[in-house]
């Protein structure tokens, strides 16, 4: 996972653009059709920024967990408890055929839950500077959730139901954390970070598709909703 100076510069630009626009994101919660394309672009930029931020954060956090979690080839099997974290993995044909509403809703649900788990993780970290980084990341992730919500409402889609509705098991939060099995808890953290990383990669591709469907100069969006 290396990136060149060019990528750093680009990320820096996204950082500034994203942070500058974050306070304005709630204001996107309107039915301005022309704004949909731009907010999709902003959401895309946010996912790229977050993906970059996560690389640093995950590296530090896995070192904090210690071996084997910070070993590059560490490839453990998924355990049932870890399946509570929403997975980005999807059948290729299914992913391709998702309509815009479903695509956005999947992203929205995933990040809402990931944010919740991440906040749970935040509370237990012993190191202060790591807690601070986690806290900062959570704020940025919150910004992403709001941004996705903005896109959905500007396209006229309803936001998915809140936690505790008819969603699958993982919708009900992290569940009781066993204080006895430290290793299992670390495994959960490992999978959470992995799933978050994968979701950010997936979201870049999701929003690329959305960008094509909803160009900045958007036409009648009701038609779009019924089309693909």
């Amino acid at each position, binding site marked *: *996972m290396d990136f060149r100076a*060019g990528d750093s510069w*680009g990320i820096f630009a996204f950082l500034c653009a994203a942070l500058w626009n974050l306070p304005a994101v709630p204001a996107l919660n309107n039915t301005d059709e022309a704004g949909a394309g731009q907010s999709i672009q902003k959401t895309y930029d946010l996912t*790229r920024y977050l*993906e970059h931020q996560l690389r640093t954060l995950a590296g530090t956090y896995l070192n904090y967990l210690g071996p084997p979690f910070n070993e590059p*080839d560490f*490839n453990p*099997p*998924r355990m049932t408890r870890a399946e509570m974290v929403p*997975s*980005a*993995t*999807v*059948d*290729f044909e299914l*992913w*391709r055929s998702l309509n815009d509403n479903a695509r956005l809703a999947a992203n929205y649900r995933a990040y809402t839950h990931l944010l919740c788990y991440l906040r749970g993780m935040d509370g237990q970290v012993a190191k202060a500077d790591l807690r601070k980084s986690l806290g900062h990341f959570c704020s940025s992730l919150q910004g992403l959730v709001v941004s996705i919500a903005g896109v959905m409402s500007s396209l006229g889609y309803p936001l998915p139901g809140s936690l505790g509705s008819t969603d699958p098991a993982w919708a009900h939060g992290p569940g009781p954390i066993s204080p006895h099995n430290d290793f299992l808890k670390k495994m959960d953290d490992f*999978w959470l970070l*992995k*799933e978050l*990383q*994968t*979701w950010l*990669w*997936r979201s*870049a*591709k999701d929003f*690329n*598709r959305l960008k*094509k469907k909803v160009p900045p100069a958007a036409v009648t969006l009701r038609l779009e909703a019924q089309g693909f």
Partner: protein
Amino acid sequence: MQMANPVPSACCVVLAAVVVVYAQRHSQQDTRVQYERIGADVTMKCGAMDWDAAVTWTVNGSDIDESHLNGSYLVLRNVHLGHSGQYSCYEGSSWHLKYQTSLKVGTPPKEPVLMCRSNNYPKRFYCSWHLPSPTYIPNTFNISVIHGTREMVCEKEAVPKNRCHIRYLQLFSTVKYKVTLTVTNALGRNSTTITFDEFAIVKPDPPENVVAKPVPYSPRRLEVRWNNPSSWPDPESFPLKFFLRYRPLILDQWQHVELSDGTSHTITDAYAGKEYIIQVAAKDNDIGTWSDWSVAVHATPWTEEPKYLTTEAQAPETTTSSTSSFVPPPTTKICDQEKVVGSGAVAVSWAAGLVLAAAGVLFI
């Protein structure tokens, strides 16, 4: 010598044929292939013959010196590749073939080199392998691809032989792929394993049909166009970004431009009149690594055509424009078309002429 009588002669012929067939069949039972390591000591026994039997050994039809014999056993010490061949053992007097073997000298396989890559994400990825050094004997390769709990089938390709491909069934997987290649031959086996994330092996092919052209009336510009690699299946959903590098042939330092969309770019800082070499590389916008550089293209920015002058006094000037230097082309050719008012005024009218020409081009 018996002669003339045909019946006994015919019997002899038939008998000889039977003996030959019998001997051949017998020898075929004893023909085998024997693999030995380079540097080993090899002892060959002459079939079921006793140690003290009188035999003759040959290799590829040539007799082997008795110094290599230990009784009826053939002893080859510290064998090397030159020892490979067909070894035969004949009973001393009757010259019956008693034993035959094809000796092949080689080595057990070293650890193979394995790599996997996806140049057509998200359709498939392929794995290819080779041995770092030859074994000189036949090898078989066996590849296994494990993704989480599932073993995937890697479909072998006819050409090239040491490659197979796997279709992505799921995208955005958090579980790594684990690929193991085992090489086996008669002298041993070896294997290697690599693990990777779905995203890490994405590397497109280089851009295709790179074309660079001068821009008329722009002495410092070059227009570069290219196509997405044809192997990339879905540039709409998985857009590529590009990296362009260029330099004049006479310099070693490249200049770089990264382009996040579009398949064309105009270089605006080319040195006038210099031939440039240009290459483009591609990468998925978000994941994986850069492709190799495309085939290099050459182009020279537009320069004004030297006008062949009629006046003798100015004829020599036209030859200076072909020297390799950073001096802009001489302007006397233009000046001679303007009215000669004074050097300063000449410069102004030259600039005015260029502006008018550019405006004229724009309106055409």
